[in-house]
């Protein structure tokens, strides 16, 4: 069996040479400083994982990863950058839909682990892709449920306008309520601010994938904190990050595509792994998330009883 393929893109060749040494024994490593060249490789070959720098002449990494998403959807996308710039991070979520946002300098073992995980997910994705035409599309008869975690009523209003009665819309104003709703386990899309009143709800978002890997998460916020966003990419796999004030059109477009993805992941459970999350690093959040999970156990017992 041939080695899985990694594609590395960075405008600094020394980065490429260095990464290659890390991977060439286990993987077939392709590398280039030219994003156009990378796109050509993606078109011509089966690439399991693409690792791109963000700031490059000609093309930004998030843009390259967006193209990669279209060109080779099964390829797992990783951004490796030394510059945590908010706009770049937002683009990497919304356009690049990256699996991980990694920072330079990196730790060899960690990057190896992430790449190994990404490779195995990509292999599963390629397998699904090859048989996708044969599997029948099953439309769930149940109404999708959208949970809104936001103090601001206007978000809920817009969602109501967009969805009308196509979905069940639940509005949670505090963390407790949000957790209870999530415990019912049939949330398709969560639309959440990062703060609910005084509570930082990142830990809830980071726990969502453990409850239901199918649930999609849209963050709608006026917070502009790059490092928090990067955490949410890696540890919550949020799929959209929209800055407030939200325009109806933007939210509509993203909400529709997330509802569709929820549906698609229901039909293709193997693809749910593409949104596997990294473990929560912050000890406090870890504890909160643990508490949430045990609360969940109690709630489910109560509900089934």
């Amino acid at each position, binding site marked *: 069996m041939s080695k899985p393929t990694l594609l590395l893109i960075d*405008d*600094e060749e*020394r*980065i490429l*040479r*260095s*990464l290659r*040494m*890390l991977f060439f024994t286990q993987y077939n490593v392709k590398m280039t400083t030219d994003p156009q060249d990378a796109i050509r490789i993606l078109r011509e070959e089966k690439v399991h994982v693409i690792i791109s720098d963000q*700031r*490059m*002449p*000609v093309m930004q990494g998030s843009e390259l990863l967006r193209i990669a998403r279209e060109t080779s959807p099964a390829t797992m996308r990783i951004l*490796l*950058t*030394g*510059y*945590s*710039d908010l706009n770049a991070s937002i683009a990497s979520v919304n356009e690049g839909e990256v699996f991980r946002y990694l*920072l*330079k*300098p*990196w730790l*060899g073992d960690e990057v190896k682990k992430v790449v190994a995980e990404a490779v195995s997910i990509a292999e599963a994705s390629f397998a699904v892709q090859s048989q996708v035409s044969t599997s029948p599309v099953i439309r769930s008869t149940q109404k999708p449920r959208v949970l809104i975690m936001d103090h601001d009523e206007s978000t809920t209003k817009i969602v109501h306008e967009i969805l009308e009665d196509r979905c069940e819309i639940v509005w949670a104003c505090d963390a407790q309520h949000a957790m209870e709703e999530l415990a019912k386990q049939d949330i398709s899309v969560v639309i959440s601010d990062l703060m609910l009143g005084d509570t930082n709800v990142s830990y809830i978002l980071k726990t969502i994938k453990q409850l239901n890997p199918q649930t999609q998460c849209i963050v709608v916020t006026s917070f502009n904190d790059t490092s928090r966003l990067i955490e949410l990419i890696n540890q919550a796999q949020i799929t959209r990050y929209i800055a407030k004030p939200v325009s109806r059109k933007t939210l509509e477009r993203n909400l529709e595509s997330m509802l569709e993805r929820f549906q698609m992941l229901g039909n293709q459970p193997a693809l749910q792994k593409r949104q596997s999350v990294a473990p929560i690093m912050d000890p406090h959040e870890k504890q909160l998330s643990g508490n949430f999970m045990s609360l969940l156990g109690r709630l489910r017992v109560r509900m089934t009883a």
Partner: protein
Amino acid sequence: MFHTSQLGQDVLTPSHAINAVVPDATDSPDFLNPDYARVLALRGLVHNAKKSGQDIFTLIHPISAVEPDCTVMEVAELFLNPNNSKLLSLPVVENGIPIGVMSRYRFMDMYLKQYARELHGKRPIRLYLNDKPLLIELDQPLAEAAHHITQNMQFPLTEDFIVTRHGKYLGVGFVMDLLKEMEFRMRAHADELNKAYSSLKSSQLALVQSEKMASLGQMVAGIAHEINTPLGYVQNNVAIGQELFMQVRTMIVGYEALVDNLLNEQASEVEIAAQMQYISQLRAELNAQEMLVDMQGLMTDSLYGIDQISELVMNLKDFSRMDAAATEAFNINDCILSALKIGRNVLKNKVDVTTLLDELPKIKCVPSQLNQVFLNLFTNAAQAMDTHGTLMIKTWYADDAIHISIADNGKGIPADILTRIFDPFFTTKPVGEGTGLGLAISHQIIQQHGGDIQVTSTLGEGTCFQIHLPLAVATAISPTLN
């Protein structure tokens, strides 16, 4: 005929004034007095006065005026009335119009003469009054009224002033009250001014600081990226090297053991065969020759990366030389090169920089400040380019001054905002992205170096900044910018 009940209050605050002119019907027995109409009229004025901020209003004492046909003796009675003891003078009014004033001083002067009572007593006061009273219109600003009175009052002070509205008599006011009020206001104004001045000063400092921090923040983020890239591969290469080192060591140990056994005549064939087997297995796992060649390349890369990092750190040190005193002479070309290095991350993928730097004499300056100016101009230029662009930087020396021209081929600045770009807080960037102080501070820095900065721009073609710095800097360089 006198309405004097409210007299005897020295300092009248506005609320007192209202009380003074709006007597309650129950405790004012003389509300049928024709003067009451005036009181009512005044009550109407209270409201207006408060609204329009009429200053004079608070000073009015609604004294009933003396008619010109009043006799001297009657006037004497009025002066003797203890209720009037505070009045320096009595207003004389005919048909509502003040025609003069009779002062106590003037009256006594006349009355002290022999047979004065007999001679003048029955005569009308009209014949004795001062027909040039101090007149103030109600809506006159306090300062103007005070000016008018101090210009026209007599020494010693013998008269009160008369307040009119549209020329009609309203009441009298005490000059001392007016001056006191004036002094009070001036003091309040001075306090306010002082406060405003110190708060302006501190907010200016805070703003200059925040602009510095904003550009510093941008710079730090840029530098972080510049450093993280080489740091990324250097760290990784070292980690790889360490691992390879361990593998190669294992291999060498294996080879040495084999060599030892081959040289040892007592060594068994079986043992040697096992060692050879072990070594060929190691070789299969690790192509040491090839790895070492690769590793050599990585070492070279690493040294290069370390050089890069040290250069960046050096630049940062040069750049932020906070030696405020402009006692040392520097070469402006060095400042420009240093700013270019620091700005490299903003410029490198976007801007082709051309430098034409002539030999320059050194000048006394604060390099950290000039670096800030140049970096600001370079980043502005990069931001003005929608796509790839060019930046031309020239320096030359002529007419005892250093000239710097920084020209980009960006989108240019529209004429209507070109005149405002050095204004503090003027920015075309979205809220939160620019403080609007970058160029204002640059302008100030250049000025403090005794120079000037000018801009020309053509829409769609580009913008050119010209800086002139005189060789001899006479002006002190402000420490506030550091």
